């Protein structure tokens, strides 16, 4: 299980691939991997978004994501999970978050992956501030 926050560019597929190769103990055990990637869109609520800043609560964010990942492991039969979330400055089309779950079977992988991203979206202390042609604005509604 791993949680990582990063200010640099995030390549979700490389993150998943690298992490999976490092976890020698699950090789041959997992039959299913479910992955979700959240990416910055150009449009939000009808306005063209030029850039975004992602603020978070250092310490609490990691703590909360660990708690959610642990809870996923208690509720479903999974072998491993990975959450990488970007913070700081982003541009449209930049990946923001990747959640990956490895399991023997697909139902557990899907359910746990969806649980983690749903909890992350609704409860983890991240805040988006968008820059549009009209200036900066805090995103007030989660999507």
């Amino acid at each position, binding site marked *: 299980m791993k949680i990582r926050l990063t200010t640099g560019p995030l390549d979700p597929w490389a993150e998943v691939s690298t992490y999976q190769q490092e976890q020698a103990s699950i090789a041959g055990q997992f039959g299913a991997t479910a992955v979700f990637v*959240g990416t910055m869109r150009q449009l939000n609520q009808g306005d063209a978004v030029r850039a975004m800043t992602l603020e978070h*609560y250092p310490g*609490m964010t990691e703590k909360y994501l660990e708690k959610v990942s642990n809870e996923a492991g208690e509720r479903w039969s999974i072998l491993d999970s990975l959450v990488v979330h970007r913070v700081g400055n982003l541009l449209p089309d930049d990946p*923001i978050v990747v959640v990956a779950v490895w399991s023997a079977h697909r139902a557990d992988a899907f359910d746990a992956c969806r649980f983690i991203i749903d909890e992350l979206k609704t409860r983890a*202390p991240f*805040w988006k501030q968008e820059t549009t042609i009209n200036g900066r604005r805090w995103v007030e509604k*989660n999507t």
Partner: protein
Amino acid sequence: MSISVKYFASIRERLNRSEESLAAEGICTAGEVWVRTTGEALPANVLVAINQEHARAGDTVQDGDEVAFFPPVTGG
């Protein structure tokens, strides 16, 4: 010892500060921390964390605690 108070995102900008320290005397709840530092009642849409865990305005705070106030989250 004292209570460490943190503010994030639009709350931080509106209050124009990101953290401060507060003497714990006479304070029982997280909501009271907000009243003491801002001079206003805690708005319903301001969320609270105590020691980096989600909490409610009425939850008890103690000397040495870290109390944070922030708007609804919009991550991922």
